[in-house]
């Protein structure tokens, strides 16, 4: 479908193209960008389903297509946002870099293997195209404020805990927007250890990964990572206990029918503790609140007026305008490797326990 905007329209705003127009694009990024219309305009939406692409594009008066090449060939697309299924991420990030775009925002995980991640880093370095991974909590103003509060905690923390309790995604997608073409839901059958292992992998790469880059701030090394516990929480969720770099890491999640979300990260050391309470995904509910306690004194930061998704886009605008640094590719790769090592360890743990 041809662009609905005049091709000679001059805009100082940054043009954004979306690869994939599912719930993440509809319920997260388009609402976020609607709050940043002074910085961005959505110029192109691609989806393999032409009707979905056209319908979503029409909401923002953008062009639509069913082909990545068409989107990458569109000169009005300056930043590519990759919101497709995980398995397509790496190839699409590389293609966007090679197309000479100004920046790439890729939903987490940005690759599903260390090899893919290394290839992405290589292409990013070769082309100079900055990559931002959509780990929104890392861009949340509440988290960024925590970094300024936490003193020596990254060096002294011995226990890191992330707990997530959420209603199914659809609940918050519906609070954020009206979603079309939502994937079918349902819960796994846990009688098969392979299903358990696959569920845990999905848990790490689909949910825990939001916070693993944050966890890694307190875990200096993870070559010695051990999975001491890896179990599913019904109907969907997980509980992990990890040891890495001398730290203990507890990750738990329960997605159930509750109406009350709770998303908390805590890092504790001998003299201080940090608690960051995040708002749920999808809704524009402002930032996390960070509480840092030492010696019985608690300092609180937040809430601030925007969440991590908006923070991602603000960062991208800064990168494109040259006022902010792009994330270092090596750190992104290590974040991903941390997730993949956890997945591998969890799988081995589950399958060994089943024998």
């Amino acid at each position, binding site marked *: 479908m041809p662009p609905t905007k005049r091709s000679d329209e001059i805009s100082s705003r940054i043009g954004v193209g979306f690869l994939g127009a599912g719930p993440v694009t509809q319920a997260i990024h388009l609402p976020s960008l609607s709050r940043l219309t002074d910085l961005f305009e959505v110029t192109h939406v691609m989806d393999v389903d032409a009707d979905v692409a056209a319908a979503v594009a029409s909401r923002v008066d953008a062009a639509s297509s069913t082909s990545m090449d068409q989107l990458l060939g569109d000169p009005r697309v300056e930043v590519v946002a990759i919101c497709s299924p995980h398995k397509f991420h790496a190839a699409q990030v590389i293609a966007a870099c090679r197309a000479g775009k100004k920046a790439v925002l890729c939903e987490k995980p940005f690759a599903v293997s260390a090899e893919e991640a290394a290839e992405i880093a290589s292409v990013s370095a070769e082309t100079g195209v900055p990559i931002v991974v959509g780990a929104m909590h890392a861009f949340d103003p509440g988290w960024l404020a925590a970094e300024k509060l936490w003193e020596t905690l990254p060096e002294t923390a*011995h*226990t890191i*805990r992330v*707990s997530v*309790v959420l209603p199914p995604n659809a609940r918050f997608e519906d609070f954020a927007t009206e979603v079309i073409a939502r994937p079918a839901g349902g819960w796994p059958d*846990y009688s098969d250890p392979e299903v358990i292992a696959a569920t845990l992998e999905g848990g790490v790469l689909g949910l825990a990964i939001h916070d693993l880059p944050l966890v890694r701030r307190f875990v200096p090394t993870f070559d010695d990572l051990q999975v*001491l*516990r890896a*179990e599913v*929480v*019904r*109907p969907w*969720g997980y*509980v992990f*206990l990890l*040891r890495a770099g001398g730290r*203990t890491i*507890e990750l*738990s999640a*329960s997605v*159930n*029918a*509750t*109406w*009350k979300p709770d998303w908390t990260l805590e890092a*504790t*050391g*001998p*003299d*201080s*503790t940090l608690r960051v309470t995040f708002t749920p995904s999808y809704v524009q509910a402002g930032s996390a609140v960070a509480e840092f*306690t*030492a*010696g*019985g004194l*608690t300092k609180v930061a937040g809430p601030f007026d925007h969440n991590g998704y908006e923070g991602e886009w603000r960062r991208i605008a800064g990168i494109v305008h040259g006022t902010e640094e792009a994330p270092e590719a090596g750190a992104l790769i290590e974040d991903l490797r941390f997730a993949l090592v956890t997945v591998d360890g969890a799988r081995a743990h589950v399958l060994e326990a089943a024998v």
Partner: protein
Amino acid sequence: MSTLTKHYTVDTHSVPGLSETVASLPLSLAPAGQEPAQLAAIAGTPGWLERTREALDGGALAAVVSSPSAADGILSLPTDFAQRAIVEWSFASNPGLQTAAEATSSLRETAVFADIELRVPTETNFDDVLLDVLIAAGRVFGSMSPVRSLHRDKAGWHLASWLRGQASDVPVSFSIIATDAAPATLRLRLLTQDGGLSASVPSPATAEPAEVRITGPDGERLLPTLWETSRRVSWRRAVAVAAGEAVSDDLSELDGAISLAPKGMG
């Protein structure tokens, strides 16, 4: 005793901090002075079972054991003695947890996950506090499988179990975390298919109430807050036992908790 001086005597020197409790129950308790105490205060350090037996054998009407360590032969205590032995736990005896325990009986069938976390000062001997955690978990979560130790070092102790009697596996996580950042506290959660219960129990040094919340499809409810320390509750129970108005089953519960704990306690 007149109605204004109906009290039982206590040796306030036998357990640190007991004077405060006696002062808070002046119609029920009084310092024993030079006379043998009617209510025995027993420190829970090793040998507490023998000391309890001796106190009751020596005429004490009831004995309050503070944070007992693991011991063998608990069930060998005569029933009459066992029914007059009250265990005072720093956290599990908090009145808010009793409220939580009553509230969760209807939630356990739909439980999906449970966790309990105790934060204690650094240098705490984790063996000394694990039984408190297990008793609290047992009261709120219900029956559990034997607890496995996953990792232990000076910074913390992490353990795992399952809730028994559920249609499907319900993991339980236990954490004891050493930090001086803030006063000791116990937190626990029982998550269900559509909500659950959470409790935050403050340091036993304060009468600040535990905060217990139940979340369900209709909303969230803060259970009534009770401004009483674990110790005061325990001594009120001792008074009731001494008066023949109640019997204690605490030692049986303790023996059950010891049987769940990892062998050798780490």
